[in-house]
């Protein structure tokens, strides 16, 4: 029983990182209405960049975002201008075709550069675990969850209190009205896309402190983050965090009560049920 509670807590802590990943997706989808099927592969790419920075300059995984965050930000802006901007006036199907193409491209590149075998960083300074009433909690999970929450709060502050952040939110509410008040939509969109992908760099760094990476990881992270987004609904950042925790905890519960292979099955089931019964999510605005 204790192990089940323990696993669930660790899963829920992992869910905070999921929420961080989903926050990036939610900015991209919520603001620009761009369907990015490659978001999970952005996470995969970030994890590989983390691996690179970590091995080349022997950075600790948690410190790598100092390099990978700006890198992924630039990558996002580049991807926006080259790929996404041209699809904004097309049907959503074209957008999906382009981002699925990007997904294939990223996976192929990862395979070319880093080969198919899993990669991991040797060690992280965050090690060990501690006991709370007979339950062991991994320190790495706790700290990464804390960092995720702080980062989410930071983004919340950015979106509500700073001018570029408020421009992003204005554009997501009403693009035409925002344009009239002097918001440059292209730059705002590029900023949103850059921010969305930069957040995966942060998540990638945190994930790499206790996990390995392989080229096929993107699929799971992509689907998971869409599940969390569906569960949370658009527009609520605290809701995102709660949904992330629910998804992470459910994954861990499924693994310890049923079968490790079934990891995401219940999450997908919840996803489909939410789509049927509550399309705007648990916390979303209309």
């Amino acid at each position: 029983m204790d192990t089940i509670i323990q696993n669930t807590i660790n899963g829920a802590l992992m869910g905070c990182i999921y929420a961080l990943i989903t926050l990036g997706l939610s900015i991209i989808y919520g603001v620009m209405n761009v369907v990015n099927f490659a978001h999970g592969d952005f996470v995969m790419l970030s994890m590989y960049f983390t691996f690179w920075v970590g091995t080349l300059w022997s950075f600790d995984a948690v410190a790598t975002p100092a390099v990978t965050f700006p890198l992924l930000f630039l990558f996002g802006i580049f991807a926006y201008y080259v790929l996404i901007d041209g699809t904004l006036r097309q049907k959503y199907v074209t957008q999906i075709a382009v981002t699925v193409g990007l997904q294939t491209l990223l996976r192929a590149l990862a395979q070319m550069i880093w080969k198919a075998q899993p990669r991991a960083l040797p060690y992280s300074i965050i090690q060990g675990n501690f006991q709370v009433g007979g339950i062991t909690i991994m320190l790495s999970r706790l700290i990464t969850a804390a960092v995720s929450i702080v980062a989410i709060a930071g983004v919340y502050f950015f979106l509500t209190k700073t001018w570029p952040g408020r421009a992003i939110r204005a554009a997501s509410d009403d693009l035409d009205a925002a344009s009239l008040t002097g918001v440059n939509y292209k730059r705002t969109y590029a900023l949103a896309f850059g921010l969305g992908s930069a957040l995966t760099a942060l998540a990638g760094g945190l994930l790499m402190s206790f996990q390995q990476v392989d080229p096929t990881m993107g699929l799971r992270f992509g689907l998971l983050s869409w599940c969390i987004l569906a569960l949370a609904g658009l527009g609520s950042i605290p809701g995102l965090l709660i949904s992330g925790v629910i998804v992470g905890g459910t994954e861990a519960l499924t693994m310890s009560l049923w079968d490790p292979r079934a990891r995401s099955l219940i999450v997908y089931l919840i996803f489909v049920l939410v789509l049927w019964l509550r399309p705007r999510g648990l916390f979303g605005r209309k």
Partner: protein
Amino acid sequence: MRSKQRTIKTSLLLAGLAIVLLVPLLLGRNQYHMVLVTTVLLYGVLATAWNIIGGMGGQLDLAAGAYLGLGAYTAGTLLLRWNVSPWLGMIVGGLVATGFAMLVGLPLFRFGVKEVWYALSSSALVEVLRVLFQMWEEVGGPTERYLPYHVSSWYHLRFASYVPFYYILLAMLLIALFLNVRISRSKLGYYLFALGENEDAAEVLGVDARACKLRALMIYAFLVGAAGGVYACLYGFIHPNFFSSAMSTETAILGIVGGMGITYGPLVAAVLLVSFREFLRASLGGQLEGLYLAVYAVILILIALFRPQGIATFIRDAYGKAMSRLQVTGEKDVVSADSPGL
């Protein structure tokens, strides 16, 4: 003039069919080339079937792998357990896939799940089935299950060469194309095109969106499921990885870059792109793992960006131009380049 145009069209189609029928005679000796054309045909069947729900109906279905896997497992298990011929097995497989599609489609369409959410839930479906079949030891299990080995047997659909599979898949492709043409000229087809253009508007005009989408999904699932039965025999085993999300997305992508709703669009895309991909794999695959896929992905992105209507529109335009050149002296108004179907 019209009849002349029709004669040209028919003779072109017949000539094309003759060439396709003769392909194995020309390539039959070379195993690699036969594998290649058979793969192209398989993707052709999948993408052409996808055109019914995706191209016409505008529903971005990413679950081709689910129906393919269900068909493969049904045909394979029937053969392994009860020695039922895959000829029957592929029909049953198609029916199982259809039943499953109905089971999934009814609530999805009832609750109005559409666009990206439909795409994502269908994509999740493939993953769910893959894991379930991995865990279901009686039928699946994590390792492959080999179908009974025979050097050559019509009953067991086992052959020493790929030529019979080529003809079986070709027949399926023709059936899929025929269904596409029939549907695109039927009421269901017009409703689907309307849904694909604008779902809300179509519903306001009285299109029963739920019923139309469900019927399209079931027809598509049947074709893909039946192809799954052939797929199992082609490889000689069944494996949970048949529920492949890569294959599912590729099917949809071929349908999109081929040209949504153009009958021969997905086929054109399958012929050009799958053979191009295999060519890349053969020429680049040895040097650097993944390079061929990267090049392939770039091509897909370029097509989607610069020809969002699909590559089949190149052919349609060329055909229209050639037709109008033929009759510059005749009436000008009879040329319609965008007649639905070929």
